[in-house]
């Protein structure tokens, strides 16, 4: 299947959060017998962009990142998650050095012009308080120059002052579609950066969200109607406010993410 071009005035790129899932072979997305080393090449025939997950688990290493990007076409694009030592497991003294390492590790994607975004995904326990506000401010300063996107997981950040501050920095707010749960950041269609908007579809599995298991948290299959809520009004509205939009599906379980991503691509093409 060939990649589909959208007809929208702004460039909208749809992909999935991560691509190297062996269970996607069983789900039929990858041909039988596809090894991890051949997945990106196959994925890139269908989607124009991916969100690299493993950089959250491990500080990126430039040689490995360079080898990875060479497996995809030159016009393929990447978003990379910020490493957990800068978001979830922060050492109060050591984090600036981690930020430097991250910049070095991600450099091959910057130099090749393939890096569209760096996703700063903050944990649910990262509430809005003076200490965390100060840390976030210093972190964004330390990473300035990179195309930053911030995803909050706690509802305390969903206030206008936060959006205004992001706008002043031209930092993108990650809009999320997830379950409606107390304290979880709500699904807002908000553009804080005229260059880029960023949407993540996590799935609406309320029962599994706080189970501690990824396989339950991200096990969800979107219906056409649920996706249409975004494709008919929210995404077109955001498109008018930003030059580029990236949309990722994170509901990777049983290959639902690529399936839903294709559904959304079709809806956007039809609109």
């Amino acid at each position, binding site marked *: 299947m060939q990649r589909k071009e959208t007809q929208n005035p702004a460039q909208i790129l749809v992909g999935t959060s991560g691509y*190297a*899932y062996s*269970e996607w072979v069983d789900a039929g997305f990858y041909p039988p017998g596809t*090894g*991890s*080393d*051949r997945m990106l090449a196959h994925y890139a025939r269908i989607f124009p962009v991916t969100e690299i997950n493993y950089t959250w*688990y491990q500080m990126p290493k430039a040689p*490995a990142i360079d*080898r990875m990007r060479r497996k995809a076409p030159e016009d393929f694009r990447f978003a990379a998650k910020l490493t957990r030592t800068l978001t979830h497991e922060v050492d109060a003294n050591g984090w600036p050095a981690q930020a430097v390492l991250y910049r070095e590790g991600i450099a091959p994607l910057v130099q090749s012009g393939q890096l569209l975004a760096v996703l700063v995904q903050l944990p649910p326990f990262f509430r809005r308080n003076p200490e965390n506000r100060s840390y976030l401010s210093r972190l964004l300063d330390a990473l300035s120059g990179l195309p930053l996107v911030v995803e909050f997981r706690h509802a305390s950040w969903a206030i206008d002052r936060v959006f205004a501050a992001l706008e002043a920095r031209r930092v993108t707010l990650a809009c999320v579609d997830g379950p409606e749960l107390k304290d979880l950041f709500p699904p807002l269609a908000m553009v804080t950066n005229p260059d880029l908007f960023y949407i993540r579809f996590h799935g609406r599995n309320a029962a599994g969200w706080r189970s501690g298991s990824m396989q339950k948290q991200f096990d969800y299959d979107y219906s056409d109607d649920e996706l249409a809520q975004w494709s008919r009004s929210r995404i077109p509205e955001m498109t008018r406010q930003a030059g580029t939009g990236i949309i990722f599906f994170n509901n990777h379980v049983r290959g639902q993410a690529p399936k839903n991503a294709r559904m959304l691509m079709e809806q956007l093409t039809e609109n």
Partner: protein
Amino acid sequence: MERSIIHINVADFAVAVERVLDRRLDSRPVIVAPEGATRAAVLDMSEEAFQAGVRKHMPLNRALRRCRDARVLPPRPDRYGQAMARMLKSAMPCSPLIEPGEGDGHLFVDVTGSSRLLGPPVDVAWRLSRRIRRDIGLVPIWSVATSKLIAKIATRLVKPLGEYIVDPGDEAAFLAPLPLFLVPGIEPDDFARLNDLNMIRVFQAAMLSTDQMETLFGHRGRFIHDRLHGIDPSPVRPVDDPPPRVVECEEFGDDTNDHSQMERSLYRLVEQAGRQLRHQALAARRVALVLDHTDGVRRIRQVTAAPATANDFTLFTHARRVLNLAWTRRVRLRRMTLVCDRLTYPPAQRLLFEPERRMAERQDRLVATMDRIRQRFGTDALAMGRMLAA
């Protein structure tokens, strides 16, 4: 199927366990070495002591000259064993295929094919490391790769702290720039020989063909060739299924360096091991010896037994060869352990040349007769002359 192997490695395991038990040891240099020995050697040390120049097996006196403020602790193997058992328990929900090291803070976990149930292997590895940290207080290094070999090298690279994910298909590029000594299985002698050829990194030695390797290293050539190319099909064994082997151990009441006593003890161990092998109708393809010196230094050497054997006389020939390889220090010995592994069924192929064949058959008949006599009249009914003290 592409394998997903997690390697968990708690660096400086003995020190890490001691620090969990006594938080006052945090961030100060710590050395683990036996007490009371005249020439005690370092068994383990903290990163601070390592940075000060302390190394494993270094005489304690010299270590303390290099790191004067180090706290010296006696080894407590029982505590380390308990910590290993708890690590194992933490890993049990991840897979039935878990291979622990011997009280050294290492675990291999095979999570191949479990991603639909547990999620991506890298996420399983991260959660496991977090669980070990939360439950036991140990902070492990972790890696994910397609083989035990690559996973183990990866954790070595990030020691003392960190993680390493080697993507499938990336093994050769990962190994290429590494120094040869980081590759498990490359012995110091092999390294020295490659060094003579100005080869110090993997990509240099990996250019040699299998034939060239066999010219250099004989029957080990293919093994070394595979290691340098990241080839390691060895499975992660189920946790309740240790590798089949026969282990016999003798602890000396008085530490000794008497050669004739050592040979008598070695023959006793060989007889015990041989009897077990014959009882199981198996033969060993490898004979190894573990020597524990009074000062805590441990020496391990092994030789290949080809063809596989369960005959006491042949086993003893191999065991004595290993003893000569392993026993190179003048320091007294506290314990000797004989390991016969790589067990197989006795070879059906008879020896080619008549004199050797006749000798082997006579020895087999003799050993079988001795087994029958001992079975009927007790183990002490019969003794070899070499077992009698001078």
